[in-house]
């Protein structure tokens, strides 16, 4: 179905760490990605609003699913783990995607809501701090007017300080709580995506002006310094 002029859309990018340390979790990750997509499809309003993209990263970044209206996705990618944890490439790739995707959506006459990036990482970036910090800054300030809303989720050995730095606003930096298993953490990452997109859909439908949602059980908010 073609989008009607003036209809709304929200770009949602899943930016997923697929470095070698994620290898034991990849089957679960791929299964939950399918579940998340089917969850979106189960709600016609949600399926109409959400445009979904998947970017995986390790030593390099890969666009595994270009931004696509959820109800037009034919096949989901099967993510594969390997390599080291680097952030520069994924931030640069997201900058380019946001530029291109938001411009294309607007050209199609869509009203575009603030894009959401759900960033998941289980480690500390091993590439140059200045390089990835600069790329992150560009993503936050110059990729799209006002920047995307970046939810940063840290699991495993992720550094809470880095998790906070990646998040774009206070309330969007989340660490898995101590004691939660890696599989619980991955599950809650997808629950976060689900909670946010459903709440956003309700708000858009009712014209509430606010999206309100609860954090999944195993994710703990980290306040961000100085915002």
């Amino acid at each position, binding site marked *: 179905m073609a989008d009607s002029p003036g209809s709304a859309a929200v770009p949602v990018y899943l930016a997923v760490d697929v470095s070698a340390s994620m290898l034991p979790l990849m089957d679960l990750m791929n299964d939950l990605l399918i579940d998340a997509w089917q969850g979106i499809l189960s709600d016609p309003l949600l399926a109409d609003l959400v445009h979904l993209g998947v970017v995986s990263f390790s030593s390099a970044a890969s666009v595994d699913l270009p931004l696509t209206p959820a109800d037009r996705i034919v096949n989901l990618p099967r993510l594969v783990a390997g390599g080291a944890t680097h952030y520069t490439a994924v931030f640069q790739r997201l900058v380019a995607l946001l530029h291109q995707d938001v411009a294309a959506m607007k050209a199609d006459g869509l009203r575009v809501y603030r894009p959401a990036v759900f960033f998941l990482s289980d480690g500390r970036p091993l590439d140059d701090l200045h390089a990835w910090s600069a790329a992150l800054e560009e993503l936050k300030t110059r990729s799209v007017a006002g920047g995307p809303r970046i939810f940063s989720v840290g699991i495993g050995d992720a550094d*809470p300080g880095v998790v906070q730095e990646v998040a774009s606003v206070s*309330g969007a930096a989340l660490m898995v709580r101590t004691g939660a298993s890696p599989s619980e953490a991955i599950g809650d990452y997808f629950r976060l995506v689900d909670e946010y997109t459903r709440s956003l859909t309700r708000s858009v439908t009712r014209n509430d002006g606010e999206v309100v949602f609860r954090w999944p059980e195993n994710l703990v908010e980290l306040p961000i310094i100085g915002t």
Partner: protein
Amino acid sequence: MPSAWLTLVISTGAAVVSLGSLVVSVLTYRASGPRVAISDYDIANRGGEWWLQIRVVNSGRSEVDVEAAWTNWLGATVSDLPHRMKGGSSKNLVFKGLLPPLQYGGNIITVQVGLGSGRNVLKQIRLNESQQGQLSASRIDHHDERSTDGRSATFPVEEV
């Protein structure tokens, strides 16, 4: 009769040995007493609130009362005490608190468990790097006004 005397001596000796063995057994049992230790722990931040759970184990054979339990920055346990621990049993105790005080700068939580016997069990729990990072973050006295109760968040719906 020499044989009767011999029987009496042997019987008396056996009785003395048996009695001695019984006394030694009782003394050993009593000496073993309660043996209480903190065997395990878990600390987690749940919605901005820190939860510490410890497992107190009595590996001895005697019963003992756990009268009180306290940590240096989470205060007294919220679990029901006193609690009578049988020999070979364990009990989980939970502590809860919002934030460590600003002057708390270490990476060790000291737990003290007071027993009815008058003894105290002490354990120092060393936090790992991730837990220290979370503690540092939670000490920052700042929450964006858009964040509500720590278990939920509110963001504006905006077009770009």
